[in-house]
């Protein structure tokens, strides 16, 4: 089973089948309860190449690698490395390819991870490329839902926020196409709707979805609310931003209109899109979701490096 992952590049969640993800989830289940450091990847070196800021993703990859017994080398931020001196991304990847057994890459340019995978002989894991893909986040999101509800099929979802530029939201929606959700509501201001190529992909894959302006229209119907941040800089006119901002802040009062078992997910970091009163409520699943980042990334690293 694990042969499907061995030495494979992880670029987009769309490269996977639900069977692949089931294998990954079963593997993650084994790691979830283990607290001691393992030696599964002893002697392996994992390179973390983060050309764009990250806290959770970088740290959880680092913790996952270390818990498996691997050593970790890192590039953090373009300023800290030779890239500031003008070295090409391609040359940096070639260097990491010769120093390590696996490269985790995050970059603000779309397609950077795919390009890195074409250059490197070692497997490349995409930890976010511009607005496009964030496959390991989608794996965590789907795993969280599986843990909370026991299944991913048959539920009604709403994805709220910046669906145009947000890679986590896009990857999550792509991930849902591998399953059979009852319905997916895509809730955003008109200027932050999913991109044309994403819409085309969803239609091709037969996802049942509908685009909405307000979460209040669907709050009573949904089982999972996936929230992402709307960034001020996406709006050319700050007045426009202020106008829409309020309708995309999730409050406890709003959630109480929904089903009792409704759960709120968020890829984090969150700023002010979820009111603090939600954090300690039964609805908040995002801290649990962040915690599952470790077992999922442990499972992925060990499967890709053939330690399955």
């Amino acid at each position, binding site marked *: 089973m694990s042969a499907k992952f061995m030495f494979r590049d992880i670029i987009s969640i769309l490269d996977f089948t639900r069977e692949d993800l089931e294998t990954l989830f079963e593997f993650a289940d084994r790691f979830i309860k283990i607290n001691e450091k393992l030696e599964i990847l002893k002697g392996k070196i994992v390179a973390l190449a983060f050309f764009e800021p990250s806290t959770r993703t970088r740290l959880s990859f680092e913790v996952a690698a270390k818990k498996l017994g691997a050593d970790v080398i890192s590039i953090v931020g373009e300023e800290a490395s030779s890239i500031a001196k*003008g070295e*090409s*991304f*391609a040359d940096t990847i070639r260097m990491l390819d010769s120093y390590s057994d696996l490269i985790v890459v995050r*970059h*603000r*340019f*779309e*397609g*950077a991870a*795919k*390009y890195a995978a074409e250059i490197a002989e070692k497997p490349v894991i995409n930890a976010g*490329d*511009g*607005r*496009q893909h964030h496959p390991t986040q989608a794996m965590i999101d789907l795993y969280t839902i599986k843990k909370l509800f026991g299944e991913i099929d048959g539920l009604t979802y709403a994805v709220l926020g910046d669906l145009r530029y947000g890679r986590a939201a896009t990857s999550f929606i792509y991930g849902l196409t591998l399953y059979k959700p009852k319905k997916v509501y895509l809730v955003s201001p008109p200027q932050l709707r999913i*991109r*044309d*190529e*994403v819409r*085309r992909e969803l239609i091709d894959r037969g996802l049942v979805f509908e685009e909405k302006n307000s979460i209040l229209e669907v709050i009573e119907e949904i089982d999972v609310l996936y929230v992402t941040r709307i960034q001020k800089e996406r709006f050319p006119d700050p007045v426009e931003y202020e106008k829409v901002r309020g309708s995309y802040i999730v409050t406890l009062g709003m959630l109480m209109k929904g089903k009792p078992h409704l759960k709120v997910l968020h890829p984090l970091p969150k700023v002010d899109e979820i009111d603090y009163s939600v954090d300690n409520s039964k609805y908040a699943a995002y801290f649990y979701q962040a915690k599952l980042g470790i077992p999922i990334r442990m499972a992925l690293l060990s499967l890709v490096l053939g330690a399955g």
Partner: protein
Amino acid sequence: MPSGEVHTLIVPKILEGTVIDHIPAGKALEILKVLGISGQEGLRIAVLMNVESKKLGKKDIIKIEKKKLTVDEVNVIALIAPTATINIIENFIVVEKFKARVPDVVENIIKCPNPTCITNKDREPLKSRFRTISREPLLLQCDYCGVIVTRDDIPRLIRR
């Protein structure tokens, strides 16, 4: 003057080379651009624009002497001129004739319109690559960033 004489006068036959016929009117210069022909190569070229056509009403024609287009070059023409027919000439005779067809993969011909696509990053030894996801209407998808371009976008995206 009878019209036949006019045509004989302005469209002489070529000894050997390529005739690109049935180009949509006004597109000839764009085709030369995608083929990377600037006129500096020294090739003898006839460019006819907006001439009468039974099929198209009006059309453009390009005759290039002493240059036989390759299959790849022919395919590139299809990006701009789906109706074009390509005739390879030897000794004044058409020895090969084919219709332009958009290739499955379009590499290094058009640039990606997305400024944050990795193919637009400075100092990277990387060629643009698009996959043809539909021929009619023409839709090409960037293999790196996923952006979709249509036939109308293509002229302004040509690299050469």
